[in-house]
């Protein structure tokens, strides 16, 4: 394994900053979806960057860098999620949803804002694979073909996983499981 710990910007090769800057916004969105708060999203991104700096030679060779970065972010998130007993999205979205609803009452009716809040709670009850897939596919609009690369999983398996995840979301919302838990 080659570890360019102290590599410097050489000649015309892109620097680390030049490589990752164009992808930071999208990575941040994913990190926020995974973690549920701005502070945790920033932590996740920071950890990712620290892990990537020594791999700059590898980054320079990647043809399509964004899927590669998204995959690294997902793996890091899963690794942190498994080590932590804390649910990553617990309650983190509420404040931002309230603010967004207040600023855009035409888009976020009280009913829609309520549904979005309930969905955040329901998402916590999916397994991590289903949740990541719904985050990336249904919330961030990645195609299954793109996700095949990012998640290292065949499209057929992703379709089945998406089907089960959506069905579980509907069931949770329909049964009121989420609302009951929120009331507790």
């Amino acid at each position, binding site marked *: *394994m*080659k*570890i*360019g*710990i*102290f*590599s*410097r910007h*050489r000649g015309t090769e892109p620097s*680390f*900053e030049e490589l*990752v*800057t164009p992808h*930071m*916004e999208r990575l*941040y*969105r994913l990190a*926020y*979806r995974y973690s549920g708060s*701005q502070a945790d999203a*920033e932590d996740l*991104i*920071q950890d990712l*960057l*620290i892990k*990537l*700096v*020594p791999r700059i030679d590898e980054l320079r060779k990647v043809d399509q860098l964004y899927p590669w970065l998204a995959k690294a972010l997902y793996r890091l998130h899963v690794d942190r999620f498994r080590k932590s007993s804390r649910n990553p999205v617990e309650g983190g*979205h509420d404040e*931002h*949803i309230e603010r*967004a609803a207040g600023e855009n009452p035409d*888009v*976020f009716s009280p009913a*829609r804002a309520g*549904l*979005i809040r309930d*969905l*955040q709670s329901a998402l916590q009850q999916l397994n991590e694979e289903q949740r990541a897939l*719904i985050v990336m596919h*249904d*919330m961030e*609009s990645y195609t299954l073909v793109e996700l095949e690369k990012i998640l290292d999983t065949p499209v057929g398996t992703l*379709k089945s996983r*998406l*089907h089960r995840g*959506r069905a579980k*979301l*509907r069931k949770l*919302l*329909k049964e009121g499981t989420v609302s009951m838990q929120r009331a507790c």
Partner: protein
Amino acid sequence: MNCEQLLNQLDDYLDGNLSGERRDQLERHLGECEDCRILATEAQEIQQALRETPVPPMRPGFASQAIKRATNHHRHHRRSFIAGFSSALAASLLVALFVGKLLPTMESTPGPGLSPPLIISLQQPRTVNLVFDVAAAMENATISIEIPENVEVPGFPKQHLITWKTSLQPGRNILALPLRGIVRSNSALVASIELDGRRKSIRIPIEVSDKKADPRAGLPFGRHV
């Protein structure tokens, strides 16, 4: 189309992946079956709510700050990795790689067994000072350390090739390399310096054992390679 078939195709319908006759059949069924119509409506509302779930914008300046912190983190690591030129020399093991004038050979590695092995205690980190003694300043030289399987650098587990670019000053440049034995066996560490396609290496026999490190190993035993 029956209700079960609709359920199987609902995801494709929601994602806009149904076309032509299949979509017409599904929509005809929705017109006829109230249960399925309610299901599809709820599913569409959920999809819309998921898409509309807001994400606060990234904090201005965060991207550049985070990138800077990440690169500085590793610069700091380098400073602690390449120790100062004067500290703890007497107490450390010394292995010297003398580079008088780089020869146009790719590699010159002495055979094994020509030097006594460095004793590294099992699980006890020990600092080995590698001395790069160069006749003239070397800009942008590549240093490579091939670490054998029976030892590791604390903080770099399972990393057996560490390579980076640096500049060397004329005279003795010292790299303090902490090593920890992980498997009781014999092996060799190879330190190399490369500039403009030319390379010099030194092979350092290593023995990982329960023995305490021999204080006599404090003497330089590197060789001109």
